[in-house]
């Protein structure tokens, strides 16, 4: 079988019916990953037990057991997810050698369904970034153009998929960290409704915005991967008890009488790159041709989404990252002696060395926003506007089934191009942060290439818990895009 093209279901089916062993599959992807990694830097580390895990799957099959719908499918795991016994760093020096004694709920769920963990994927440090240049372990390259960024923060997850180092990977998305790199690398990426996937064991960046999701090479794979990652978890109070539908089985690409909303605010500013503009227009006309109804909708508060996002995310991050203090685990500054050391110095040296520039910037921004005298004007006000934004989106979804938009204003930019201009970097998230603020599901589906041969995707959003609607439109787009199964040649 062609493991480069095979779907998750096909690989698992072949393994379960002994057409190929899980070990063979794992060896194939491990070899491929190790070969490509020096060029792309997508993996931070490989799991030395990958082949053992695969052998265990084969043994189960040999004994007549069913290892589950992901039997023998190798996964790459973003380094934000804790993996028992396997280094988990969040791409930060402060956790450089941290080995968790537990699996994130998502990881244990994947394992339970037969997945093999191949290794940990590179990212922006603590998921803070849009280019993957903020990693302590170095930048990831865009497989379609090695001089470009793969996007971030789940840059490793997207680059690994684009080159088929793995058939599936996990990402986290706080303001676009799955959708934006999926867009830059030409793969499918989904952030489900907030609460769909347990956050337990996922290193927290901004708790009220963080949501995990899969990155895959097709919408069908994404639907299957997503349903296996979702579900109630008693360890996460914010995890929803909504039943998880079998999205993959209910996929339907018929666009008859599907109402596709276009956000007035996203299209009118004229800031779009011509290639992106063309791609979005093409997607709309194609959908219309398939029977969809195109409706203009308005969510006026999206214009405040970026500042809202940075106030809220930085505030929560400043608190979430307090635990990295060098006391119980992680990096501790190399002090000659602890005697006569001021506690403040212990913290400032340890944290000063352990965190990268962007992380420190956000901690300081967040600390400021939460401090007495500023809380009301910043964090609290942002929270109030956030609720209104959510209400406006809910109203918009009364008029349409999905909202279609660009993922980013332009295709992947050059490495180093924006690293010295944080504000320019932050504006990358202009189309993606609103779904996180409103808790909505969103996805990125590849739909074309720029003139410079960089992938361009389409973003779809749906009402809370209406992932199926989004996936269906995604499938329709995929079927006319000619992008499915494209692998970047490196």
């Amino acid at each position: 079988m062609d493991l480069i093209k095979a779907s998750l279901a096909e690989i698992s089916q072949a393994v379960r019916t002994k057409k190929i062993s899980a070990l063979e599959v794992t060896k194939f992807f491990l070899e491929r990953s190790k070969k490509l990694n020096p060029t792309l830097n997508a993996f931070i580390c490989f799991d030395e037990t990958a082949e053992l895990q695969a052998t265990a799957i084969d043994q189960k099959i040999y004994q007549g057991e069913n290892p589950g719908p992901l039997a023998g499918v190798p996964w790459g795991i973003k380094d934000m997810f804790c993996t028992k016994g396997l280094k988990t760093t969040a791409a930060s020096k402060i956790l450089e050698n941290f080995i968790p004694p537990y699996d994130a709920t998502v990881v244990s769920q994947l394992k339970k369904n037969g997945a093999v963990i191949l290794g940990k994927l590179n990212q922006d440090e603590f998921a803070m970034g849009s280019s993957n240049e903020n990693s302590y372990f170095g930048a990831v390259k865009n497989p379609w153009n090695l001089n470009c960024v793969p996007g971030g923060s789940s840059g490793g997850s997207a680059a690994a998929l684009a080159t088929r180092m793995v058939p599936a990977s996990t990402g986290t998305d706080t303001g676009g960290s799955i959708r934006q790199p999926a867009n830059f690398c030409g793969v499918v990426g989904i952030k489900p409704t907030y609460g769909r996937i347990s956050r337990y064991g996922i290193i927290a960046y901004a708790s009220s915005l963080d949501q995990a999701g899969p990155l895959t090479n097709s919408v069908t794979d994404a639907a299957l991967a997503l349903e296996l990652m979702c579900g109630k978890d008693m360890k996460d109070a914010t995890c929803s008890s909504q039943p998880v539908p079998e999205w993959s089985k209910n996929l339907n690409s018929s666009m008859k009488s599907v109402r596709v909303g276009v956000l007035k605010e996203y299209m009118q500013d004229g800031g779009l790159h011509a290639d992106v503009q063309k791609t979005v227009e093409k997607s709309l006309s194609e959908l219309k041709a398939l029977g969809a109804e195109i409706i203009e909708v308005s969510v006026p508060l999206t214009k405040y989404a970026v500042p809202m996002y940075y106030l809220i995310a930085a505030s929560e991050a400043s608190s979430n990252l307090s635990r990295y203090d060098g006391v119980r685990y992680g990096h501790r500054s190399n002090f000659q002696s602890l005697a006569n050391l001021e506690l403040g110095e212990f913290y400032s040296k340890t944290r000063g060395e352990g965190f990268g520039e962007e992380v420190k910037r956000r901690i300081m921004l967040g600390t400021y926003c939460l401090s007495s005298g500023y809380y009301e004007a910043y964090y609290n006000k942002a929270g109030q506007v956030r609720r209104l934004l959510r209400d406006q989106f809910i109203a918009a979804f009364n008029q349409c089934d999905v909202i279609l938009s660009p993922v980013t204003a332009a295709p992947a930019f050059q490495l180093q191009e924006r690293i010295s201009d944080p504000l320019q970097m932050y504006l990358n998230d202009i189309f993606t942060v609103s779904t996180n603020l409103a808790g909505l599901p969103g996805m990125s589906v590849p739909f074309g290439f720029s003139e410079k041969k960089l992938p361009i995707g389409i973003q779809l959003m749906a009402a809370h818990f209406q992932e199926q609607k989004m996936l269906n439109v995604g499938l329709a787009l995929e079927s006319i895009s000619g992008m499915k199964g494209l692998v970047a040649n490196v």
Partner: protein
Amino acid sequence: MSRNFEAVIGLEVHAQLKTKSKIFCADSTQFDAGDNENTSPVSVGMPGTLPALNERVVEQAIKAGLALNCHIRPVSIFARKNYFYPDLPKGYQISQYDKPICENGSVEFKLQGKAHQIRIERAHLEEDAGKSTHFGDYTLLNYNRAGIPLLEIVSGPDLRSPAEAAEYAKALRQILRYLDVCDGNLEEGSLRCDCNISVRLRGETKLGTKVEIKNINSFRFIEKSLEYEIERQIEAVERGEKIIQETRLWDPDKNKTFSMRTKEDAQDYRYFPDPDLLPVIVTKEALEKFKKEIPELPLARSRRFTEELGLSENDADAIVSEREIADYFESASRMCGNFKATANWIMTEVLRELNESKLSIIQSRITAENLGALIKLIDAGTISGKIAKTIFSEMWTSEDSPEKIIKTKGLVQISDSSAIEKLIDEVLAANTSQVAEFRSGKTKLFGFFVGAAMKASKGQANPDLVNEILQKKLKGGL
């Protein structure tokens, strides 16, 4: 108080709620576990771990709030209190800030017979931190306490003396123990107290600058530290000094408070709602259910015991000091109908035996029913008070009922006057010289005859009858 000053005191009491597991994870709360034995990735703040609220904690907080006459918020919010300290694993403490679960209540207590009512501003839930033990050049950390559920009960600035403050704390402890939501064990730290204290001239309505004395773990130290602090502050004011707003600690060895940090070092805790936890919703139905579960509280019970059962105020207060003692009293007195005698027996004999054997009343070797039966036997005249004491000791050793002991030992009181007459005749016949002396005016000898008669009956003769018959015989001639 000296020199025309008055003290204004408010207390913050941290009560450890009585749960098997911690507030946000399944770690045990057992007190005597080995160092860091009661920990898990959640309680030591490992990356990616999340809090999951223990519902028992909320239930107990609601009960406490109801007993303290508080308004229970239909929606309360957990907030993060951010600060760095090595025994605080996450770099923030999960607490409640502007929306605590209980607000605006009051506590009543009596001090030297006078009733006091103290406002409760709020009672909020929070997690405890770990424990740092400092040694010269290193510090050891024990996170067993990290995540222990606490209810912080904040009083209004309504207390006016150290004695009032201590009595208020005792009253709180009693109420929490009645509710079975806190074991009130001060040595184990399940009740800790911060005292806010300022002084002002009598008649002044503005509050003076307050000082906080932190982490006091005994009622005596509440009183002593406040006494010291009041004196210190008055002397300072009289010298014309300004009181500095600061946090002080009590040194029990030196009998002094000393400064820990001043307000200038005060931290900005950057409180904000914890995005990892949902709002705590208390429905009307749940509230009604909890209201029904609130037992009669000590003050009301004591009032009922004095007003309806005729106990003295002192006896009633002593009996209600512990819910289990009051329960024991009620079962025993229900059995015999003699409330006063039951109270006496409990406060003297029962509590003495319990103290000697270091048992609590629920472990008493004499059941409430058996004590009631014993008192009933005395009141019926079946046994004398003296025999009752013997039977009581026997009951304590054997755990048998009084009836059984009386039967096997033949200890029934002799109330048959002809039998006693016979017995007395023998005593008088054996002591003719004493009889003569008595009759010649040495009436003090009456006691001697009573003793001899009781001895002859092995203590079983009804003493009233012995008296009556002796009087008759000695005065009336043989």
